[in-house]
């Protein structure tokens, strides 16, 4: 793998992805509608729990911050995965693989577009939470920024694995783009602390960097000082997970080329 980036090629990928995003109404569903729907569902559940008076804590706030942060992972993953899947759906993969475009340049372009979509998706959730539930996301403070960064990298890690699975098993594996994300969300305790999960699953949850990010967000929502230890644990997790997922993708790409799987798309 060559580590150098040709910025002209990265820019070309960004422009292609941006035009594709702008001209595909169905892609806007992910960015605008889906965040709104999630906010309504989870915000209403939280509000209902609050109204029962049993929790004694800000159930709606927990749910809304949970959905906001889940969408960090969602947008980072889905945007990057779908950018790659777009090339397989339109059978453009062959054209790219016989062009000078390096894998690292394609990934860099996809990440930039993914980050832009993430901002749009988060903005939508924040706006919906404020308008519909009077929940101001900024009450958690600037401490949310490193939490969001950890979750963004978790989203990209999932996307790298999804790409590897699609290269290995074909387009049938694309369902894992959403499936894998939901498994990670469930195990990370996006809406509940890890100790609320069945005991069998708790060790799995503690292995995931996203678990520490969600926990840190809840600490911030409680008005406590920045939980640096949790953020550091999350960051250490992504420092392991991203290179690992990249290695899996590179190994699969080698397999893809040596087994001639490109003929699936020609």
């Amino acid at each position, binding site marked *: 793998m*060559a580590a150098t980036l*040709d910025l*002209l*090629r990265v*820019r*070309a990928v960004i*422009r*292609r992805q941006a*035009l*594709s995003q702008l*001209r*595909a109404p169905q892609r806007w569903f992910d960015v605008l509608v889906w965040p709104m729907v999630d906010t309504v569902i989870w915000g209403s559940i939280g509000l209902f729990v609050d109204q029962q008076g049993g929790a004694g804590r800000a159930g709606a706030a927990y749910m809304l911050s949970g959905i906001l942060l889940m969408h960090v992972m969602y947008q980072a993953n889905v945007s990057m995965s779908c950018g790659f899947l*777009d*090339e397989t*759906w*339109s*059978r*453009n993969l*062959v*054209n*790219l*693989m*016989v*062009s*000078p*475009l*390096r894998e690292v340049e394609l990934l860099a372009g996809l990440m930039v577009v993914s980050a832009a979509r993430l901002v749009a998706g988060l903005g939508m959730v924040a706006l919906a939470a404020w308008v519909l539930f009077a929940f101001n996301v900024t009450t958690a403070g600037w401490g949310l920024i490193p939490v969001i960064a950890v979750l963004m990298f978790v989203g990209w890690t999932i996307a790298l694995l999804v790409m590897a699975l699609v290269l290995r098993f074909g387009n049938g594996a694309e369902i894992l783009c959403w499936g894998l994300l939901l498994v990670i969300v469930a195990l990370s305790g996006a809406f509940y602390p890890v100790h609320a999960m069945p005991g069998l699953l708790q060790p799995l949850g503690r292995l995931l960097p996203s678990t520490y990010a969600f926990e840190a967000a809840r600490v911030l929502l409680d008005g406590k000082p920045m939980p640096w230890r949790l953020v550091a644990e999350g960051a250490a997790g992504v420092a392991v997970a991203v290179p690992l997922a990249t290695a899996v993708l590179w190994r699969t790409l*080698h397999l893809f*080329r*040596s*087994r*001639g799987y*490109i*003929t699936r798309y*020609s």
Partner: protein
Amino acid sequence: MSQARGSGGVPRSATADRAAPVRQTEPMAAARVLDARGLVKRYKRATAVAGVSLAVGAGERVALLGANGAGKTTTLLMLLGAIIPDAGSVTVLGHTLPGARSRALEGVGFAAGYLPLPDRLRVREVLAYFANLHGIAEPGPAIEVGLKRFRIAHLGDAMASELSSGQRTLVGIIKATLHRPRLLVLDEPTASLDPEVAHRVRMGLERTCEEDGSALLVTSHNMTDVERICERVVFLSHGLVVADGPPAAVASQFGRANLEEVFLHLASEETI
């Protein structure tokens, strides 16, 4: 499969023994834009390419021919680094694959008649996209030249997904020639095209090769096209080179009147 080396370094098989693939126009090593040696590719149930060696000289026009299943597309994809061979080596413009794939492909253009164009882009955007990938920062003038050369300037603002298959093929070839490649690789460029569009492809290709000095490696099932465009043909059968030389020489090597008859003869032996 037993193999022996022919005089031109090309493996021979039982099929090849009947019409020995004597390499008549071996390009000088220094002038080669492509040099592949002993390529082998085995899939789970079949050997697609059983030991192909192929060299293309600068500015040379070569056709890679054979029936369905002969190993043409697998060979092309190995030459372009999209498939890693089980054995053998590929050098493109002096760069060895797969390590220097990106550098090598900067000077190569590829188009296939069966490949669609990227979704949701206009024709000029598709062309600019691939021009950028090949290092052209300001591709506007090259795009206009390409569109005029293949007489589709009026389609520049059309959505690529709305083009007919013929128009799409023409855009694909323009995409492959924008950066004036030293080696142009085309897989079935005239497949399913009407005679007028096929003629336009031929004319455009000849002009491209003449003006840009590009070498051409093309696969086709249209022997008339091949005889018109290419100065050299390489026939594959059962994943092996069975003939290599000027069209007339290859036809006479098999005791046939033209390439069409050679093709039919070899195709009758192929199992698809």
